[in-house]
Protein backbone atom coordinates (compact mmCIF):
# COMPACT_ATOMS: atom_id res chain seq x y z
CA UNK A 1 0.00 0.00 0.00
CA UNK A 2 1.43 3.42 -0.94
CA UNK A 3 0.17 6.78 0.22
CA UNK A 4 0.25 10.03 -1.71
CA UNK A 5 -1.44 13.38 -1.25
CA UNK A 6 -2.62 16.25 -3.39
CA UNK A 7 -1.05 19.70 -2.91
CA UNK A 8 -4.40 20.87 -1.52
CA UNK A 9 -4.40 18.12 1.10
CA UNK A 10 -0.85 19.04 2.08
CA UNK A 11 -1.88 22.68 2.48
CA UNK A 12 -4.81 21.69 4.68
CA UNK A 13 -2.52 19.51 6.81
CA UNK A 14 -0.20 22.50 7.24
CA UNK A 15 -3.17 24.62 8.38
CA UNK A 16 -4.23 21.96 10.86
CA UNK A 17 -0.69 21.74 12.18
CA UNK A 18 -0.68 25.51 12.72
CA UNK A 19 -3.94 25.20 14.67
CA UNK A 20 -2.53 22.37 16.82
CA UNK A 21 0.96 23.60 17.63
CA UNK A 22 2.81 21.19 19.83
CA UNK A 23 0.37 18.31 19.28
CA UNK A 24 1.38 15.13 17.54
CA UNK A 25 -0.84 14.48 14.51
CA UNK A 26 -1.60 11.16 12.81
CA UNK A 27 -3.72 10.00 9.91
CA UNK A 28 -5.79 6.86 10.47
CA UNK A 29 -8.66 5.37 8.47
CA UNK A 30 -12.32 4.80 9.12
CA UNK A 31 -13.56 1.27 9.62
CA UNK A 32 -16.65 1.13 7.43
CA UNK A 33 -20.13 2.06 8.66
CA UNK A 34 -21.00 5.72 8.30
CA UNK A 35 -17.76 6.96 6.80
CA UNK A 36 -16.22 4.07 4.89
CA UNK A 37 -12.42 4.16 4.97
CA UNK A 38 -12.20 7.95 5.01
CA UNK A 39 -8.91 9.32 6.31
CA UNK A 40 -9.09 10.95 9.75
CA UNK A 41 -6.50 13.41 10.99
CA UNK A 42 -6.30 13.35 14.77
CA UNK A 43 -4.26 15.23 17.32
CA UNK A 44 -3.05 13.33 20.40
CA UNK A 45 -4.46 10.01 19.20
CA UNK A 46 -3.49 6.74 20.81
CA UNK A 47 -2.64 4.28 18.06
CA UNK A 48 -3.74 0.69 18.49
CA UNK A 49 -1.15 -2.11 18.18
CA UNK A 50 -2.81 -3.06 14.87
CA UNK A 51 -2.22 0.29 13.22
CA UNK A 52 1.06 0.20 11.28
CA UNK A 53 2.79 3.07 9.46
CA UNK A 54 2.09 3.03 5.73
CA UNK A 55 3.39 6.46 4.67
CA UNK A 56 3.39 10.15 5.45
CA UNK A 57 1.61 13.27 4.24
CA UNK A 58 3.24 16.66 4.81
CA UNK A 59 5.26 15.19 7.63
CA UNK A 60 2.27 13.53 9.33
CA UNK A 61 2.49 9.75 9.73
CA UNK A 62 -0.26 7.68 8.12
CA UNK A 63 -1.26 4.49 9.95
CA UNK A 64 -3.52 1.70 8.79
CA UNK A 65 -4.74 -1.49 10.39
CA UNK A 66 -4.84 -4.91 8.72
CA UNK A 67 -8.15 -4.59 6.90
CA UNK A 68 -7.19 -1.26 5.29
CA UNK A 69 -3.75 -2.53 4.34
CA UNK A 70 -5.42 -5.54 2.74
CA UNK A 71 -8.06 -3.40 1.00
CA UNK A 72 -5.41 -1.26 -0.67
CA UNK A 73 -2.65 -3.80 -1.04
CA UNK A 74 -0.59 -3.07 -4.19
CA UNK A 75 -2.48 0.21 -4.70
CA UNK A 76 -1.55 3.81 -4.28
CA UNK A 77 -4.09 5.82 -2.35
CA UNK A 78 -4.15 9.58 -2.55
CA UNK A 79 -5.38 11.76 0.29
CA UNK A 80 -7.24 14.76 -1.09
CA UNK A 81 -9.33 17.48 0.55
CA UNK A 82 -12.78 18.85 -0.27
CA UNK A 83 -14.58 21.87 1.05
CA UNK A 84 -17.48 20.52 3.09
CA UNK A 85 -19.54 22.80 5.35
CA UNK A 86 -21.56 19.80 6.55
CA UNK A 87 -18.79 17.42 7.52
CA UNK A 88 -19.72 15.58 10.71
CA UNK A 89 -16.61 13.70 11.75
CA UNK A 90 -14.08 14.25 14.48
CA UNK A 91 -11.20 14.81 12.05
CA UNK A 92 -9.10 17.91 12.76
CA UNK A 93 -9.53 19.60 9.35
CA UNK A 94 -13.29 19.85 9.75
CA UNK A 95 -13.40 23.03 11.87
CA UNK A 96 -11.37 24.65 9.09
CA UNK A 97 -14.13 23.82 6.58
CA UNK A 98 -12.39 20.91 4.86
CA UNK A 99 -12.83 17.14 4.77
CA UNK A 100 -10.12 14.71 3.77
CA UNK A 101 -11.13 12.09 1.24
CA UNK A 102 -9.45 9.05 -0.20
CA UNK A 103 -8.89 8.62 -3.90
CA UNK A 104 -7.31 5.70 -5.69
CA UNK A 105 -4.42 6.63 -7.94
Amino acid sequence: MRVGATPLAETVVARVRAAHLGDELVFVFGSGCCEGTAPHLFARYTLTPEQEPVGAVAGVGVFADAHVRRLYRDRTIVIDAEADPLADGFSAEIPLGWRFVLRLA
Partner: protein
Amino acid sequence: MPEYQLYIDGQLCDAEGGRTADSINPATEEPWARVARASRKDTQRAIAAARRAFDEGPWPRMSQADRAKILNQVADGLEARSQELAAVETHDSGGTIRKTSGDMMMGAAQLRYFAEMAPKLPLWEEIQVPQFPAQSKNYLQREPIGVCGQIIPWNFPLMMAVWKIGPALCAGNTLVLKPASDTPCSALELAKIIDQTDLPKGVLNVIHGSGAECGEELCTSPLVDKVALTGSTEVGRRVQQLASGTIKKVTLELGGKSANIILDDADLEMAVDGSLFGCFFHQGQACESGTRLFVSEKLHDEVVGRLVERTKPLTVGDPMDFATCQGPLISARQRETVLGYIKKGVDEGAKVAVGGKRPEHLAKGYYVEPTIFVDVKNNMTIAQEEIFGPVLCVIRYKTIDDAIRMANDSIYGLGGAVWSRDKEKALVVAKQMRTGTVWVNEYHLLSVAAPFGGYKQSGIGREFGLEGILEYTEVKHVHVDQVDNRGGKFWYGALFGA
Protein backbone atom coordinates in the same frame (compact mmCIF):
# COMPACT_ATOMS: atom_id res chain seq x y z
CA MET B 1 -36.58 26.89 2.54
CA PRO B 2 -37.33 25.91 6.16
CA GLU B 3 -34.87 27.35 8.64
CA TYR B 4 -33.71 25.80 11.88
CA GLN B 5 -31.97 27.32 14.87
CA LEU B 6 -30.12 25.71 17.77
CA TYR B 7 -32.00 25.05 21.01
CA ILE B 8 -30.03 26.12 24.06
CA ASP B 9 -31.27 26.84 27.58
CA GLY B 10 -34.91 26.80 26.56
CA GLN B 11 -34.41 29.19 23.65
CA LEU B 12 -34.18 28.86 19.92
CA CYS B 13 -31.07 30.79 18.91
CA ASP B 14 -28.64 31.42 16.11
CA ALA B 15 -25.18 29.93 16.12
CA GLU B 16 -22.09 32.02 16.87
CA GLY B 17 -21.53 34.49 14.07
CA GLY B 18 -24.85 33.55 12.49
CA ARG B 19 -23.20 30.54 10.85
CA THR B 20 -25.52 28.23 8.93
CA ALA B 21 -25.24 25.25 6.59
CA ASP B 22 -27.72 23.83 4.10
CA SER B 23 -29.04 20.31 4.58
CA ILE B 24 -29.19 18.29 1.36
CA ASN B 25 -32.14 16.15 0.27
CA PRO B 26 -30.54 12.86 -0.85
CA ALA B 27 -33.33 12.20 -3.37
CA THR B 28 -32.85 15.46 -5.24
CA GLU B 29 -29.25 16.29 -4.30
CA GLU B 30 -30.51 19.83 -3.61
CA PRO B 31 -30.39 21.87 -0.41
CA TRP B 32 -33.78 21.80 1.23
CA ALA B 33 -33.32 23.41 4.70
CA ARG B 34 -31.00 25.96 6.27
CA VAL B 35 -29.70 25.01 9.71
CA ALA B 36 -27.71 26.96 12.28
CA ARG B 37 -24.23 25.44 12.58
CA ALA B 38 -22.85 25.39 16.11
CA SER B 39 -19.30 26.23 17.10
CA ARG B 40 -17.28 25.03 20.07
CA LYS B 41 -18.46 28.14 21.97
CA ASP B 42 -22.11 27.32 21.24
CA THR B 43 -21.46 23.84 22.58
CA GLN B 44 -19.93 25.31 25.72
CA ARG B 45 -23.05 27.44 26.19
CA ALA B 46 -25.25 24.39 25.81
CA ILE B 47 -23.12 22.43 28.28
CA ALA B 48 -23.26 25.32 30.77
CA ALA B 49 -27.06 25.42 30.46
CA ALA B 50 -27.31 21.68 31.06
CA ARG B 51 -24.90 21.95 34.01
CA ARG B 52 -26.94 24.74 35.61
CA ALA B 53 -30.18 22.88 35.02
CA PHE B 54 -28.71 19.82 36.72
CA ASP B 55 -26.95 21.49 39.65
CA GLU B 56 -29.53 24.16 40.45
CA GLY B 57 -32.72 23.43 38.53
CA PRO B 58 -35.75 21.39 39.55
CA TRP B 59 -35.36 18.50 37.09
CA PRO B 60 -33.09 16.07 38.97
CA ARG B 61 -35.07 16.68 42.16
CA MET B 62 -38.47 16.38 40.55
CA SER B 63 -40.63 13.43 41.50
CA GLN B 64 -40.51 10.46 39.19
CA ALA B 65 -44.24 10.83 38.55
CA ASP B 66 -43.76 14.42 37.39
CA ARG B 67 -40.92 13.40 35.09
CA ALA B 68 -43.17 10.71 33.62
CA LYS B 69 -45.86 13.29 32.97
CA ILE B 70 -43.45 15.47 31.00
CA LEU B 71 -42.13 12.54 28.95
CA ASN B 72 -45.71 11.77 28.02
CA GLN B 73 -46.21 15.40 26.98
CA VAL B 74 -43.28 15.00 24.58
CA ALA B 75 -44.81 11.79 23.22
CA ASP B 76 -48.16 13.58 22.76
CA GLY B 77 -46.45 16.39 20.85
CA LEU B 78 -44.57 13.98 18.61
CA GLU B 79 -47.70 11.97 17.88
CA ALA B 80 -49.68 15.09 17.00
CA ARG B 81 -47.10 16.14 14.40
CA SER B 82 -45.94 12.71 13.29
CA GLN B 83 -47.01 12.96 9.64
CA GLU B 84 -45.35 16.31 9.22
CA LEU B 85 -42.19 15.11 10.93
CA ALA B 86 -42.09 11.96 8.79
CA ALA B 87 -41.91 14.18 5.70
CA VAL B 88 -39.14 16.28 7.29
CA GLU B 89 -37.25 13.07 8.07
CA THR B 90 -37.65 11.76 4.52
CA HIS B 91 -36.41 15.03 3.00
CA ASP B 92 -33.46 15.10 5.36
CA SER B 93 -32.42 11.43 5.38
CA GLY B 94 -33.76 9.79 2.22
CA GLY B 95 -35.61 7.21 4.31
CA THR B 96 -38.78 6.16 2.51
CA ILE B 97 -41.98 7.75 3.79
CA ARG B 98 -43.12 4.22 4.74
CA LYS B 99 -40.08 3.93 6.99
CA THR B 100 -40.13 7.42 8.47
CA SER B 101 -43.86 7.27 9.24
CA GLY B 102 -43.13 4.11 11.23
CA ASP B 103 -40.18 5.80 12.93
CA MET B 104 -42.34 8.66 14.25
CA MET B 105 -44.99 6.35 15.69
CA MET B 106 -42.34 4.09 17.23
CA GLY B 107 -40.51 7.11 18.62
CA ALA B 108 -43.65 8.31 20.41
CA ALA B 109 -44.37 4.80 21.75
CA GLN B 110 -40.80 4.48 22.98
CA LEU B 111 -41.02 7.81 24.80
CA ARG B 112 -44.12 6.48 26.56
CA TYR B 113 -42.13 3.43 27.68
CA PHE B 114 -39.53 5.69 29.28
CA ALA B 115 -42.37 7.66 30.89
CA GLU B 116 -43.79 4.42 32.26
CA MET B 117 -40.39 3.37 33.60
CA ALA B 118 -39.65 6.62 35.42
CA PRO B 119 -41.73 5.80 38.53
CA LYS B 120 -40.43 2.22 38.49
CA LEU B 121 -36.75 3.08 38.80
CA PRO B 122 -35.40 1.72 42.09
CA LEU B 123 -33.99 5.02 43.36
CA TRP B 124 -33.72 3.85 46.96
CA GLU B 125 -33.75 0.22 48.01
CA GLU B 126 -32.60 -1.80 50.96
CA ILE B 127 -30.28 -4.71 50.23
CA GLN B 128 -29.21 -7.63 52.38
CA VAL B 129 -25.50 -8.12 52.97
CA PRO B 130 -23.61 -10.60 55.20
CA GLN B 131 -23.78 -9.26 58.75
CA PHE B 132 -20.08 -9.88 59.48
CA PRO B 133 -18.12 -8.24 60.88
CA ALA B 134 -20.78 -5.59 61.51
CA GLN B 135 -24.49 -5.48 62.02
CA SER B 136 -25.69 -2.98 59.50
CA LYS B 137 -28.54 -1.88 57.29
CA ASN B 138 -27.55 -1.28 53.70
CA TYR B 139 -29.18 0.77 51.01
CA LEU B 140 -28.61 1.52 47.36
CA GLN B 141 -29.34 5.01 46.15
CA ARG B 142 -29.56 5.58 42.41
CA GLU B 143 -29.16 9.08 41.09
CA PRO B 144 -28.85 10.62 37.65
CA ILE B 145 -25.26 10.86 36.45
CA GLY B 146 -25.47 14.54 35.54
CA VAL B 147 -24.87 16.22 32.20
CA CYS B 148 -24.90 13.82 29.25
CA GLY B 149 -23.42 14.48 25.82
CA GLN B 150 -25.30 12.48 23.20
CA ILE B 151 -24.08 12.04 19.63
CA ILE B 152 -26.29 10.28 17.10
CA PRO B 153 -26.08 9.21 13.43
CA TRP B 154 -28.10 9.95 10.31
CA ASN B 155 -29.82 6.63 9.68
CA PHE B 156 -32.75 6.87 12.12
CA PRO B 157 -32.43 10.51 13.18
CA LEU B 158 -35.62 10.93 15.22
CA MET B 159 -35.61 7.45 16.72
CA MET B 160 -31.95 7.76 17.67
CA ALA B 161 -32.79 11.03 19.43
CA VAL B 162 -35.56 9.29 21.38
CA TRP B 163 -33.31 6.34 22.29
CA LYS B 164 -30.84 8.80 23.79
CA ILE B 165 -33.04 11.44 25.43
CA GLY B 166 -35.59 8.89 26.69
CA PRO B 167 -33.43 7.04 29.23
CA ALA B 168 -31.40 10.14 30.09
CA LEU B 169 -34.50 12.15 31.00
CA CYS B 170 -36.23 9.19 32.63
CA ALA B 171 -33.36 9.00 35.11
CA GLY B 172 -33.28 12.76 35.75
CA ASN B 173 -30.21 13.77 33.75
CA THR B 174 -29.77 16.87 31.64
CA LEU B 175 -28.29 16.67 28.21
CA VAL B 176 -26.81 18.16 25.09
CA LEU B 177 -27.87 16.27 21.97
CA LYS B 178 -25.83 16.52 18.78
CA PRO B 179 -27.70 15.06 15.81
CA ALA B 180 -25.73 14.10 12.69
CA SER B 181 -24.72 16.97 10.44
CA ASP B 182 -26.55 15.35 7.53
CA THR B 183 -29.85 15.02 9.40
CA PRO B 184 -30.41 17.66 12.07
CA CYS B 185 -33.97 18.66 11.27
CA SER B 186 -36.14 16.12 13.08
CA ALA B 187 -34.16 16.58 16.32
CA LEU B 188 -34.60 20.34 16.02
CA GLU B 189 -38.33 19.82 15.40
CA LEU B 190 -38.39 17.64 18.52
CA ALA B 191 -36.73 20.51 20.41
CA LYS B 192 -39.59 22.78 19.35
CA ILE B 193 -42.10 20.20 20.58
CA ILE B 194 -40.24 19.90 23.88
CA ASP B 195 -40.18 23.65 24.25
CA GLN B 196 -43.98 23.54 24.52
CA THR B 197 -43.90 21.02 27.37
CA ASP B 198 -43.16 21.56 31.07
CA LEU B 199 -39.57 20.39 30.74
CA PRO B 200 -37.52 23.00 32.65
CA LYS B 201 -35.21 25.10 30.51
CA GLY B 202 -31.66 23.90 30.03
CA VAL B 203 -32.54 20.25 30.63
CA LEU B 204 -32.48 19.40 26.94
CA ASN B 205 -30.30 21.26 24.47
CA VAL B 206 -29.89 20.47 20.78
CA ILE B 207 -26.93 21.66 18.75
CA HIS B 208 -26.05 20.98 15.13
CA GLY B 209 -22.34 20.89 14.46
CA SER B 210 -19.36 18.71 13.61
CA GLY B 211 -17.81 16.01 15.72
CA ALA B 212 -14.51 17.84 15.60
CA GLU B 213 -15.91 20.98 17.22
CA CYS B 214 -19.08 20.08 19.10
CA GLY B 215 -18.48 16.36 19.63
CA GLU B 216 -14.95 16.91 20.88
CA GLU B 217 -16.14 19.59 23.30
CA LEU B 218 -18.77 17.21 24.69
CA CYS B 219 -16.14 14.50 25.13
CA THR B 220 -13.49 16.64 26.79
CA SER B 221 -15.43 19.20 28.86
CA PRO B 222 -15.06 18.53 32.58
CA LEU B 223 -18.65 19.77 32.94
CA VAL B 224 -20.01 16.74 31.05
CA ASP B 225 -20.37 13.53 33.05
CA LYS B 226 -21.28 10.98 30.42
CA VAL B 227 -21.00 10.59 26.66
CA ALA B 228 -23.21 8.30 24.62
CA LEU B 229 -22.42 7.73 20.96
CA THR B 230 -24.05 5.77 18.20
CA GLY B 231 -21.68 5.80 15.25
CA SER B 232 -18.74 4.04 13.64
CA THR B 233 -16.18 1.99 15.49
CA GLU B 234 -13.39 4.40 14.54
CA VAL B 235 -15.31 7.37 15.94
CA GLY B 236 -16.12 5.25 19.01
CA ARG B 237 -12.42 4.74 19.56
CA ARG B 238 -11.79 8.48 19.30
CA VAL B 239 -14.70 9.37 21.61
CA GLN B 240 -13.45 6.93 24.22
CA GLN B 241 -9.95 8.38 24.00
CA LEU B 242 -11.19 11.96 24.31
CA ALA B 243 -13.50 11.07 27.20
CA SER B 244 -10.79 9.21 29.07
CA GLY B 245 -9.10 12.45 30.18
CA THR B 246 -11.95 13.15 32.61
CA ILE B 247 -12.94 9.50 33.21
CA LYS B 248 -16.38 10.04 31.75
CA LYS B 249 -18.92 7.24 31.63
CA VAL B 250 -19.04 6.18 27.98
CA THR B 251 -21.57 4.08 26.13
CA LEU B 252 -20.97 3.25 22.53
CA GLU B 253 -23.20 1.64 19.96
CA LEU B 254 -20.99 1.03 16.96
CA GLY B 255 -20.75 -0.99 13.77
CA GLY B 256 -21.78 -4.50 12.87
CA LYS B 257 -21.46 -7.20 10.22
CA SER B 258 -24.20 -9.41 11.51
CA ALA B 259 -24.63 -13.04 10.59
CA ASN B 260 -27.96 -14.40 9.43
CA ILE B 261 -28.07 -18.23 9.41
CA ILE B 262 -30.70 -20.22 7.51
CA LEU B 263 -30.97 -23.82 8.72
CA ASP B 264 -32.11 -26.55 6.35
CA ASP B 265 -35.55 -26.89 7.90
CA ALA B 266 -36.35 -23.16 7.70
CA ASP B 267 -39.62 -21.92 6.25
CA LEU B 268 -37.96 -20.58 3.11
CA GLU B 269 -40.68 -18.12 2.12
CA MET B 270 -40.37 -16.46 5.52
CA ALA B 271 -36.57 -16.80 5.74
CA VAL B 272 -35.97 -15.29 2.32
CA ASP B 273 -38.20 -12.26 2.87
CA GLY B 274 -36.91 -11.93 6.43
CA SER B 275 -33.31 -12.00 5.25
CA LEU B 276 -33.97 -9.35 2.61
CA PHE B 277 -35.77 -7.23 5.22
CA GLY B 278 -32.80 -7.80 7.50
CA CYS B 279 -30.34 -6.50 4.93
CA PHE B 280 -32.16 -4.04 2.67
CA PHE B 281 -34.41 -2.22 5.13
CA HIS B 282 -33.51 1.47 4.89
CA GLN B 283 -31.08 0.65 2.12
CA GLY B 284 -28.90 -1.39 4.50
CA GLN B 285 -28.10 1.69 6.57
CA ALA B 286 -28.68 0.09 9.96
CA CYS B 287 -25.90 -1.04 12.28
CA GLU B 288 -27.55 -4.35 13.10
CA SER B 289 -28.35 -5.29 9.48
CA GLY B 290 -27.92 -8.96 8.61
CA THR B 291 -25.33 -8.48 5.90
CA ARG B 292 -23.75 -11.95 5.89
CA LEU B 293 -26.25 -14.66 4.98
CA PHE B 294 -25.14 -18.22 5.75
CA VAL B 295 -26.87 -20.95 3.75
CA SER B 296 -26.04 -24.66 3.58
CA GLU B 297 -24.50 -26.17 0.44
CA LYS B 298 -27.71 -28.14 0.03
CA LEU B 299 -30.08 -25.15 0.03
CA HIS B 300 -27.78 -22.56 -1.50
CA ASP B 301 -28.99 -22.46 -5.09
CA GLU B 302 -32.66 -22.56 -4.16
CA VAL B 303 -32.28 -19.79 -1.58
CA VAL B 304 -30.26 -17.59 -3.94
CA GLY B 305 -32.86 -18.08 -6.66
CA ARG B 306 -35.61 -16.99 -4.31
CA LEU B 307 -33.60 -14.05 -2.98
CA VAL B 308 -32.99 -12.73 -6.48
CA GLU B 309 -36.62 -13.24 -7.47
CA ARG B 310 -37.81 -11.28 -4.41
CA THR B 311 -35.23 -8.53 -4.90
CA LYS B 312 -35.86 -7.75 -8.56
CA PRO B 313 -39.32 -6.19 -8.03
CA LEU B 314 -38.15 -3.86 -5.23
CA THR B 315 -38.81 -0.36 -6.55
CA VAL B 316 -35.98 2.14 -6.12
CA GLY B 317 -36.95 5.79 -6.32
CA ASP B 318 -38.54 8.84 -4.76
CA PRO B 319 -38.73 8.20 -1.02
CA MET B 320 -41.78 10.47 -0.68
CA ASP B 321 -43.75 8.03 -2.87
CA PHE B 322 -45.55 5.43 -0.72
CA ALA B 323 -44.94 2.85 -3.43
CA THR B 324 -41.17 3.14 -3.15
CA CYS B 325 -39.31 0.23 -1.53
CA GLN B 326 -35.77 1.64 -1.56
CA GLY B 327 -34.83 5.29 -1.25
CA PRO B 328 -31.42 6.87 -1.80
CA LEU B 329 -28.35 6.53 0.39
CA ILE B 330 -27.65 9.49 2.65
CA SER B 331 -24.97 11.20 0.53
CA ALA B 332 -22.74 11.10 -2.53
CA ARG B 333 -19.87 10.14 -0.27
CA GLN B 334 -21.77 7.13 1.07
CA ARG B 335 -22.83 6.04 -2.42
CA GLU B 336 -19.19 6.22 -3.56
CA THR B 337 -18.17 4.11 -0.56
CA VAL B 338 -20.79 1.44 -1.30
CA LEU B 339 -19.93 1.29 -5.00
CA GLY B 340 -16.27 1.00 -3.98
CA TYR B 341 -17.04 -2.04 -1.85
CA ILE B 342 -19.09 -3.59 -4.67
CA LYS B 343 -16.10 -3.21 -6.97
CA LYS B 344 -13.87 -4.72 -4.31
CA GLY B 345 -16.23 -7.69 -4.02
CA VAL B 346 -15.99 -8.32 -7.75
CA ASP B 347 -12.20 -7.85 -7.69
CA GLU B 348 -11.88 -10.44 -4.90
CA GLY B 349 -13.84 -13.02 -6.85
CA ALA B 350 -17.41 -12.76 -5.57
CA LYS B 351 -20.23 -12.62 -8.14
CA VAL B 352 -23.08 -10.15 -8.35
CA ALA B 353 -26.34 -12.12 -8.52
CA VAL B 354 -28.54 -9.00 -8.71
CA GLY B 355 -27.98 -5.24 -8.58
CA GLY B 356 -24.43 -3.97 -8.16
CA LYS B 357 -24.75 -0.51 -9.66
CA ARG B 358 -26.59 2.80 -9.77
CA PRO B 359 -30.13 2.46 -11.14
CA GLU B 360 -30.22 3.60 -14.73
CA HIS B 361 -33.63 5.21 -14.54
CA LEU B 362 -32.62 7.74 -11.85
CA ALA B 363 -30.42 10.62 -13.00
CA LYS B 364 -30.53 12.40 -9.66
CA GLY B 365 -30.30 11.08 -6.11
CA TYR B 366 -27.75 8.96 -4.24
CA TYR B 367 -29.23 5.61 -5.27
CA VAL B 368 -27.65 2.16 -5.40
CA GLU B 369 -29.56 -0.94 -6.49
CA PRO B 370 -30.15 -3.58 -3.81
CA THR B 371 -27.26 -5.96 -4.44
CA ILE B 372 -26.65 -9.62 -3.66
CA PHE B 373 -23.21 -11.21 -3.88
CA VAL B 374 -22.71 -14.97 -4.10
CA ASP B 375 -19.50 -17.04 -4.00
CA VAL B 376 -18.43 -14.95 -1.03
CA LYS B 377 -15.78 -16.29 1.33
CA ASN B 378 -16.09 -15.17 4.93
CA ASN B 379 -12.63 -13.57 4.89
CA MET B 380 -13.30 -11.35 1.87
CA THR B 381 -13.38 -7.59 2.41
CA ILE B 382 -17.09 -7.41 1.64
CA ALA B 383 -17.74 -10.07 4.29
CA GLN B 384 -15.63 -8.50 7.02
CA GLU B 385 -16.17 -4.75 6.65
CA GLU B 386 -19.34 -2.89 7.31
CA ILE B 387 -20.52 -1.48 3.99
CA PHE B 388 -23.60 0.36 5.32
CA GLY B 389 -25.52 -0.01 2.09
CA PRO B 390 -27.89 -2.49 0.39
CA VAL B 391 -25.30 -5.22 -0.16
CA LEU B 392 -25.96 -8.80 0.95
CA CYS B 393 -23.21 -11.44 0.99
CA VAL B 394 -24.31 -15.05 0.67
CA ILE B 395 -21.83 -17.52 2.16
CA ARG B 396 -22.08 -21.32 1.96
CA TYR B 397 -21.63 -23.49 5.04
CA LYS B 398 -20.98 -27.25 5.29
CA THR B 399 -22.15 -27.85 8.85
CA ILE B 400 -24.00 -25.79 11.42
CA ASP B 401 -20.84 -25.64 13.55
CA ASP B 402 -19.06 -24.25 10.49
CA ALA B 403 -21.77 -21.56 10.16
CA ILE B 404 -21.49 -20.62 13.83
CA ARG B 405 -17.70 -20.45 13.63
CA MET B 406 -17.86 -18.18 10.59
CA ALA B 407 -20.64 -16.09 12.16
CA ASN B 408 -18.40 -15.43 15.16
CA ASP B 409 -15.33 -14.76 13.00
CA SER B 410 -15.82 -11.00 12.96
CA ILE B 411 -14.60 -8.11 15.08
CA TYR B 412 -18.23 -7.15 15.43
CA GLY B 413 -21.11 -8.65 17.38
CA LEU B 414 -24.25 -6.53 17.18
CA GLY B 415 -27.11 -8.42 15.53
CA GLY B 416 -27.78 -11.79 13.96
CA ALA B 417 -30.51 -14.29 13.21
CA VAL B 418 -31.32 -17.98 12.86
CA TRP B 419 -34.13 -19.36 10.71
CA SER B 420 -35.59 -22.78 11.43
CA ARG B 421 -39.00 -24.42 11.85
CA ASP B 422 -37.56 -26.01 15.00
CA LYS B 423 -37.29 -23.14 17.46
CA GLU B 424 -35.37 -25.23 20.00
CA LYS B 425 -32.75 -26.07 17.42
CA ALA B 426 -32.56 -22.39 16.50
CA LEU B 427 -32.04 -21.48 20.15
CA VAL B 428 -29.11 -23.89 20.42
CA VAL B 429 -27.48 -21.97 17.57
CA ALA B 430 -28.51 -18.55 18.92
CA LYS B 431 -26.91 -19.23 22.28
CA GLN B 432 -23.55 -19.81 20.59
CA MET B 433 -23.53 -16.59 18.57
CA ARG B 434 -21.25 -14.00 20.14
CA THR B 435 -23.51 -11.03 19.49
CA GLY B 436 -25.79 -8.67 21.38
CA THR B 437 -29.11 -9.51 19.71
CA VAL B 438 -30.20 -12.68 17.95
CA TRP B 439 -33.53 -12.95 16.20
CA VAL B 440 -35.12 -16.35 15.64
CA ASN B 441 -37.25 -16.29 12.49
CA GLU B 442 -37.20 -12.49 12.43
CA TYR B 443 -34.95 -9.51 11.95
CA HIS B 444 -34.63 -5.87 13.03
CA LEU B 445 -37.44 -5.88 15.61
CA LEU B 446 -35.92 -4.18 18.60
CA SER B 447 -37.90 -3.72 21.74
CA VAL B 448 -37.56 -0.69 23.94
CA ALA B 449 -37.83 -3.10 26.88
CA ALA B 450 -34.95 -5.38 25.82
CA PRO B 451 -31.26 -4.39 26.05
CA PHE B 452 -29.57 -3.66 22.72
CA GLY B 453 -25.87 -3.27 22.16
CA GLY B 454 -22.66 -4.87 21.02
CA TYR B 455 -20.27 -7.62 21.89
CA LYS B 456 -16.66 -7.07 20.86
CA GLN B 457 -15.96 -3.95 18.79
CA SER B 458 -19.65 -3.30 18.25
CA GLY B 459 -19.78 -1.32 21.43
CA ILE B 460 -19.89 -0.83 25.14
CA GLY B 461 -23.02 -0.79 27.27
CA ARG B 462 -26.63 -1.38 26.42
CA GLU B 463 -29.62 0.71 25.45
CA PHE B 464 -33.24 -0.07 26.35
CA GLY B 465 -34.79 -1.97 29.16
CA LEU B 466 -34.03 -1.31 32.78
CA GLU B 467 -30.37 -2.05 31.99
CA GLY B 468 -30.29 0.76 29.49
CA ILE B 469 -31.89 3.27 31.82
CA LEU B 470 -29.58 2.29 34.69
CA GLU B 471 -26.64 3.18 32.40
CA TYR B 472 -27.83 6.73 32.99
CA THR B 473 -27.61 6.44 36.76
CA GLU B 474 -24.91 6.34 39.37
CA VAL B 475 -25.38 3.97 42.28
CA LYS B 476 -24.37 4.75 45.83
CA HIS B 477 -24.12 2.21 48.61
CA VAL B 478 -25.10 3.58 52.03
CA HIS B 479 -24.05 1.52 55.03
CA VAL B 480 -25.86 2.37 58.29
CA ASP B 481 -24.20 0.95 61.37
CA GLN B 482 -26.48 -1.00 63.76
CA VAL B 483 -23.80 -1.95 66.33
CA ASP B 484 -24.32 1.43 67.98
CA ASN B 485 -21.40 1.21 70.45
CA ARG B 486 -17.61 1.44 70.30
CA GLY B 487 -17.13 -1.74 72.30
CA GLY B 488 -18.64 -3.88 69.63
CA LYS B 489 -16.25 -2.68 66.92
CA PHE B 490 -13.52 -5.25 67.38
CA TRP B 491 -12.20 -4.67 63.87
CA TYR B 492 -10.79 -1.33 65.01
CA GLY B 493 -8.16 -3.51 66.62
CA ALA B 494 -6.49 -3.54 63.21
CA LEU B 495 -5.47 0.05 64.02
CA PHE B 496 -5.56 0.33 67.76
CA GLY B 497 -4.40 -3.17 68.74
CA ALA B 498 -6.21 -5.55 71.11
